[in-house]
């Protein structure tokens, strides 16, 4: 199948515009940098500096031109060329297809998970298309407590909304392939029942109207494999999260529109808040296990990019559609949680390096892999750039004849350096400016973001805080990249999703090394000249202030204070969409009772017991996965004379064995009666 058959005619022009201009700007910037560096000849650190500059500048240039493309696309306001959109008449017709909405989860807070499922579910009947959708919560939870809490929360949800037979719950006993394996297992068992599958994340929320729009677009475009609805970060209260939400709301649409505008039918899939053509996904997106050891071998960790590449390889298009709206997720509550998530993503993205040259992929799929790699490698490149710049300056300071610098023609072109710096900063901040311009132009949106003055003030404050946080993230990501390359294993635990304050001790523990780097950088710069120290001041300040920045931005009280002052407001806070408000309401209204001990709960609570046994019996063969030794010791402890605490493995073994649970409960009831 012709890999380009679905790209509209303007695709070449759009891509040449963005990629070509990015290339031209990169070459021009690199030549200028070379001119600046070669005033007194070129030392080895300067050659390295030039290479690193070219890579970093190229990355910024691509973001810049993508944002410009997004701005133009947003101003023109036209839909992306390529897909067929429904007419008014077609929108009124009932959906012919069936769609599953699946949420893979792993040891998450069941209250939040099921509140999101309920809010999403309840928003569908209003569209009149409920019959076209089924919902699945696909649990990969390994903690017994999470497992039992999920069962109870699912049962409560079904009873509340009358969702039995439409909202399903399945737990896997083994986590092969992690999230991709979880989804693959769903596809192999129930995938063929559905034309399309909407994949959600544990913190995803989608409006029923968006689900219907996506299903309709898939119906009308039979060669479309994936439609990604970019999720908007919402629903958090800490200052850090509100900064993320604000940035995502103001700058995100420009960047997303830009990416969609030039990537068109070869866009990417982000792993959630997207709809897949189920049969094509089953037939063409089964992930291979890569040869070799981690970090590059083994199961593919970041499955989404690879699935998009495989889907495209099979001849189906992948679209990013920012205009769909109604797609939400939650940002991490603080910098450390953000870094923890980045650590997982970093290894997953670096693993894609081994796929860049894989046979049969569309060039843009390869570009997506490289862009994913670059989004993490940019940090160590920036760090190396700083260090090699410092080394070059130290070299000139201590090894170069000082009289050379005084000769005309050999002195540094300081105004030229300042000009290049200004251009770099300009390109870096242009996406923010363009996003702000769009928001200001849309009066109603600006009003819902606190008014134009507050909006500008928020962008300025966000830019300052983001600049101060950037050096810490640079060190975190550099650590992750080097750690991955050195073969550290990544722990794919679930991320922190609640707004808890961070203790100062934790901040100090995590940032001690970063502060030390800041002190080292400042000392080295001062050795060269106070001027260089002034250039590095923003980086040094960010590193020295890492602890208070992390701890204070993790506070929900500061987030609330900023909201009261009208700062970092997003329209979804001032006038929340129904689905968001409902999810929040459900979380407050239907608190899920905590399960401190899963086995104890199943043995003492008649409802938990009956429900758990019913679910066990509905999945015959589960107990075959029970390790016999763990079950034996669990039985000894549960059925013996004196109750003994069970280990995590024993708890899971006991919970998988209906006979043991029934026997133990009966024993307890008999004891209670006698």
């Amino acid at each position, binding site marked *: 199948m012709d890999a380009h058959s679905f790209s509209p005619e303007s695709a070449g022009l759009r891509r040449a515009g963005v990629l070509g201009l990015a290339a031209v700007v990169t070459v021009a910037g690199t030549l200028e940098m070379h001119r600046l560096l070669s005033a007194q000849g070129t030392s080895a650190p300067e050659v390295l500096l030039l290479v690193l500059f070219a890579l970093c500048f190229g990355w910024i240039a691509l973001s810049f031109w993508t944002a410009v493309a997004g701005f133009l696309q947003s101003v023109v306001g036209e839909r992306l060329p390529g897909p067929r959109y429904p007419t008014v008449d077609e929108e009124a017709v009932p959906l012919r297809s069936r769609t599953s909405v699946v949420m893979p989860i792993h040891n998450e807070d069941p209250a939040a998970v099921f509140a999101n499922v309920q809010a999403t579910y309840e928003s569908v009947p209003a569209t009149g298309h409920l019959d076209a959708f*089924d919902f*699945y919560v696909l649990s990969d939870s390994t903690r017994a407590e999470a497992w039992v809490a999920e069962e109870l929360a699912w*049962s409560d949800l*079904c*009873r509340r909304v*009358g969702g*039995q*037979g439409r909202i*399903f*719950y*399945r737990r896997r006993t083994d986590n092969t392939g992690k999230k991709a394996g979880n989804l*693959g297992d769903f*596809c*192999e*068992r*129930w*995938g*063929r*029942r559905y034309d399309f599958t909407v994949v959600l994340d544990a913190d995803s929320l989608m409006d029923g109207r968006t689900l219907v729009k996506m299903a309709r677009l898939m119906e009308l475009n039979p060669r479309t494999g994936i439609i990604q609805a970019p999720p908007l970060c919402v629903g958090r209260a800490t200052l850090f999260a509100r900064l993320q939400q604000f940035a995502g709301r103001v700058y995100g649409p420009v960047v997303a529109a830009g990416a969609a505008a030039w990537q068109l039918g070869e866009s990417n899939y982000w792993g959630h808040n997207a709809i897949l053509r189920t049969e094509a996904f*089953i*037939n*063409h*997106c*089964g*992930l*291979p*296990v*890569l*040869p070799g050891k981690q970090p590059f*071998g083994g199961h593919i960790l970041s499955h989404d990019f690879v699935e998009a590449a*495989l889907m495209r390889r099979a001849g189906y298009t992948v679209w990013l559609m920012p205009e769909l709206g109604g797609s939400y997720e939650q940002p991490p509550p603080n910098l450390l949680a953000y870094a923890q998530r980045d650590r997982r993503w970093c290894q997953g993205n670096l693993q894609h390096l*081994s*796929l860049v*040259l*894989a*046979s*049969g992929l569309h060039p843009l799929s390869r570009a997506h892999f490289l862009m994913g790699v670059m989004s993490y490698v940019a940090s160590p490149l920036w760090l190396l750039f700083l260090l090699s710049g410092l080394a070059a300056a130290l070299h000139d300071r201590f090894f170069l004849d000082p009289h050379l610098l005084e000769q005309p023609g050999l002195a540094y072109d300081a105004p030229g350096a300042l000009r290049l710096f200004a251009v770099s900063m300009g390109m870096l901040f242009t996406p923010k400016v363009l996003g702000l311009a769009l928001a200001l132009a849309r009066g109603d949106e600006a009003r819902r973001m606190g008014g134009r003055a507050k909006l500008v003030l928020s962008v300025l404050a966000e830019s300052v805080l983001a600049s101060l946080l950037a050096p810490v993230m640079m060190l975190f990501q550099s650590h992750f990249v080097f750690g991955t390359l050195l073969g550290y294993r990544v722990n794919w635990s679930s991320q922190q999703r609640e707004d808890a304050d961070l203790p100062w001790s934790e901040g100090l523990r995590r940032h001690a090394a970063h502060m030390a780097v800041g002190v080292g950088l400042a000392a080295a710069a001062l050795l060269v000249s106070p001027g260089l120290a002034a250039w590095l001041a923003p980086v040094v300040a960010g590193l020295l202030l890492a602890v208070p920045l992390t701890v204070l931005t993790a506070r929900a009280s500061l987030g609330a204070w900023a909201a009261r002052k009208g700062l970092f407001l997003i329209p979804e806070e001032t006038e929340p969409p129904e689905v968001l408000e409902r999810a929040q309401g459900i979380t407050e209204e239907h608190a899920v009772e905590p399960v401190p001990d899963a086995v104890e709960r199943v043995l003492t609570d*008649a*409802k938990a*017991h*009956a*429900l758990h*046994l*019913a*679910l*066990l*019996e*509905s*999945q*015959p063969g589960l107990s075959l996965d029970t390790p016999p030794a763990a079950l034996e010791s669990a039985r000894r402890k549960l059925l013996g004379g004196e109750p003994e605490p069970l280990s995590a493995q024993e708890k899971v073994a006991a919970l998988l064995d209906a006979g043991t649970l*029934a026997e133990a*409960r*009966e024993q307890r*009831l*008999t004891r209670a009666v006698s």
Partner: protein
Amino acid sequence: MDSVTTMTSCPCVPSTVWARPQSRAALDAFFRGFGFTAEADLSALAAWAMDGYAAHGAQPQSALAVARARVETWLAGVLGTEHAGGSLLARGRAAFVLCDGASRGARVLMQPSAPEEFTRQLRAAVPVPAPSQVTAVMPEQHLTLWPFGEMFRRWFRGAAPDVSISR
């Protein structure tokens, strides 16, 4: 024993009718699984379950099998064909417990049909964790990671290709 089926609000059968206490104990355990705890309810249910069956000589396992069959018949009648299947008893029991059916007393089980509103509640509470499966195989995709290397390997009859290791 016939009198049991005609009992109203406070069913009570003397436990002396049970020749085998083990059978009675097994039945009590079974009905406790439905949330019944009062002795009167348990006695009545045991009697109801064994109605028309030669209970005096029944082994615990046989008594239990009869009780299960009785309750399954009741559940099938109340829940309808939609929920018929292998795990009807477990799922029906879960629904019964989730709806707190035991608070209605033993009588609710002993009558061939349940009140309409309770039936509706029960049907809505039957756990349906997943629909029937339509098995498919998601074939693992073949990826030659480095086509040039693959070409060289072919020329030099090299070792294993650099594709998936799970094949």
